């Protein structure tokens, strides 16, 4: 009998649930308003199709948004009992859950991430975050951080998890009684603007949430605005440092969630099939556009050959392509600029003598794509072992002893996350206590939960988001 090939037929999620307008204004004081600046286009990275024209907020627009936030803070939100604020947050959480398919499809179109991921990871976590912090709103006196809000929070978020980062910022801020002005990334503004509609639908008092779209200069105007009490930023370490300089000398409170170069440490007694799965999830989840991605695999030499063999075999089954296809595992790279950076660093890896292996897969002709790639023979000195690539590129290093693994894992300016794979509980605890990383996962990776604090050491940032600890950033 001839061998049967089970070729998966295309299984595209329908776009019809989403209504993308031709142009979008800014969301200020509970209404969509035209900006005073120019506009920019947001593009589907899988097709290069222009999705919409979006207003670029200038200093004047930012000022109006901060004023609206201040007004809402003074007159409504800071005076409202926590139990009443909770009702709005619960309502928002329920609407997100109800409109989850719409949000997931739009996130996939604007960002390039697979619909499976937007549907099964991003949007459920977003709803869970609002549900979780809604529960805190009337219990702040038990938080340990007081119950006084800060005022107006300026929040700048990245393009890799547009809606999830919005939730991580907006939900705790609102629960604590702050009002916000949020700037989504210029390549992924659409789900934030849909969230603005959800705020309207939830009848959130005008000005509690304001959304200003734009690029770097909009963000600068926002974090530099004198009437902002709090700045929260997630993004690159370079921009994070610039923001810290802007904020220095003011009494603005600051939290930063920046880059990472996480080590995923596989010991020789690890459950290998699951370790391989975790390594794949650690670096190829969301095309590697993850600040806590496990971009360095540290594997014990005694199992290195076997792990690599299994890893390559597994990588060969990753399905790269149309993000809206329900069977796609790896989607499109978010922007040509990011693609250029991934290509540049990968070329540097080859030039510096590392061995490159790319998963066999056909990439679409249009759009921005990068095939899952791993480098072996990587040393700590190589750029691909030190710099954040923020793409589907894994650097494989080896170690011989647990002590060596810890030294290599910590030998980076970053310290956001780490993974340990071992069947031996005592080793996991011992190694975890020595790793200088904000999150250490054991026998898993890239798990997020609203109850669990997240944040970095060293150049990966300051402050924590999520859990009870996440309240500290929005209370005094």
């Amino acid at each position, binding site marked *: 009998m001839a061998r049967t090939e089970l070729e998966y037929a295309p299984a595209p999620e329908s776009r019809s649930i989403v209504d993308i307008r031709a142009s979008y204004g800014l969301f200020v004081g509970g209404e969509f308003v035209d900006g005073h600046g120019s506009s920019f286009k947001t593009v589907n990275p899988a097709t290069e199709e222009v999705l919409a024209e979006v207003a670029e907020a200038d200093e004047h627009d930012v000022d109006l948004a901060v004023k609206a936030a201040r007004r809402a803070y003074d007159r409504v939100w800071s005076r409202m009992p926590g139990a009443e604020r909770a009702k709005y947050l619960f309502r928002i959480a329920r609407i997100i859950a109800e409109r989850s398919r719409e949000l997931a499809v739009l996130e996939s179109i604007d960002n390039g991430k697979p619909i499976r991921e937007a549907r099964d990871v991003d949007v459920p976590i977003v709803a869970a975050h609002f549900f979780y912090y809604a529960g805190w709103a009337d219990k702040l006196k038990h938080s340990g951080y007081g119950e006084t809000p800060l005022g107006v929070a300026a929040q700048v978020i990245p393009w890799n998890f547009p809606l999830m980062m919005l939730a991580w910022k907006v939900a705790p801020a609102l629960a604590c009684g702050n009002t916000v002005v949020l700037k989504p990334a210029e390549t992924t503004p659409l789900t934030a603007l849909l969230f603005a509609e959800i705020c309207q639908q939830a009848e959130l008092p005008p000005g509690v949430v304001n959304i200003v779209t734009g690029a770097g200069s909009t963000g600068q105007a926002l974090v530099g605005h004198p009437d902002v009490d709090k700045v929260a930023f997630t993004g690159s370490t370079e921009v994070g440092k610039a923001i810290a300089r802007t904020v220095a000398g003011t009494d603005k409170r600051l939290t930063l969630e920046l880059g990472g170069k996480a080590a995923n440490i596989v010991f020789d007694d690890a459950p290998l099939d699951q370790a391989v799965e975790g390594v794949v999830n650690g670096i190829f989840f969301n095309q590697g556009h993850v600040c806590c991605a496990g971009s360095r695999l540290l594997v014990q030499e005694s199992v290195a050959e*076997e792990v690599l063999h299994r890893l390559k075999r597994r990588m060969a089954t990753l399905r790269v392509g149309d993000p809206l296809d*329900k069977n796609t595992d790896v989607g499109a790279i978010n922007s040509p600029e990011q693609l250029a950076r991934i290509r540049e660093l990968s070329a540097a890896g080859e030039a510096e003598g590392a061995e490159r292996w790319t998963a066999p897969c056909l990439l679409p002709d249009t759009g921005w794509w990068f095939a899952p790639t791993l480098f072996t023979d990587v040393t700590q000195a190589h750029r691909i072992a030190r710099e954040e690539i923020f793409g589907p590129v894994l650097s494989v290093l080896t170690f011989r002893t647990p002590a060596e693994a810890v030294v290599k894992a910590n030998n980076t300016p970053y310290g956001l996350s780490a993974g340990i794979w071992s069947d031996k509980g005592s080793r996991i605890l011992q190694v975890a206590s020595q790793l200088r990383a904000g999150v250490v996962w054991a026998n898993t990776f890239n798990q997020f939960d609203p109850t669990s604090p997240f944040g970095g050491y060293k150049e990966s940032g300051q402050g924590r988001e999520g859990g009870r600890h996440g309240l500290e950033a929005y209370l005094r």
Partner: protein
Amino acid sequence: MLTGMAVDAVEHAPETTAAPLDVARSDASLRRFLHGLPGVDQVGAEARAAALGTRSIKTTAKATALDLAISMVDLTTLEGADTVGKVRALGAKAVHPDPSDPTCPRVAAVCVYPDMVATAKAAVGASGVKVASVATAFPSGRAALDVKLADTRDAVEAGADEIDMVIDRGAFLSGHYLAVYEEIVAVREACGPAHLKVILETGELATYDNVRRASWLAMLAGGHFIKTSTGKVQPAATLPVTMVMLEAVRDYREATGVQIGVKPAGGIRSAKDAVKHLVVVNEVAGPDWLDPDWFRFGASTLLNDLLMQRIKLTTGRYSGPDYVTVD
């Protein structure tokens, strides 16, 4: 440990029953080997199986998968109330699952108790449908070895093409791996030309580590197939258990060059479940296993759901249970 060996030719387990990896000298050596296999992390394994379960198999892929699944069914009746009439009906259905559609493939085998083998054999005739018989004091396996061997020989003499044996779970759980091993070797000898499927009864093994170890033990002892369950114990076949067994046969082929089949049995009732299993076969073991020679479903009610889904796909209409035959 197990990689690096090129797979030149893939064949069924060799005619000798000697283990390709010489680890079965004693309980101690078997224990060292089986406990040296990489562990299975329960949370991770279940997450992976669940993720594969979200694959969306539509249109042409679904048509391929449904026909493949039908061709992999071991149509089973293992009841105290089985009669000659029921087994004949089952045989007829196995040969022509959908009498109204000649393009519908036949199933792989009918699976019956030893005393029904002759009846089943006559019912399927020369259609190519195999007759499988459970043996070795199925389902508990609680009998003396000579009784189990006699049970097996009876079934083979009556014409069984395949024997589904049960392992001694008590011996396995108490660490007497050599006893389990030697019993499988003995049954394999008693099988003569018939193929041997080794039922692990994973519902009684409780952990995925045990499932992996029992899989290796059965393969080392010469089983042609490893099978999840008797169908008499809950839980029977689950997607993660089947996945762990598929990882075992994949790794065993890399280590020895010998390909072993996998048969989940019990609990797979819907076409959707069957297609999920095929996705796991495809992505974990690889397309080499997408063949009735290497993958089977032990089931009774599954076939009707596969047929109803097939009719829906070809006609565009849902028919309903009155349009497929009962038992």
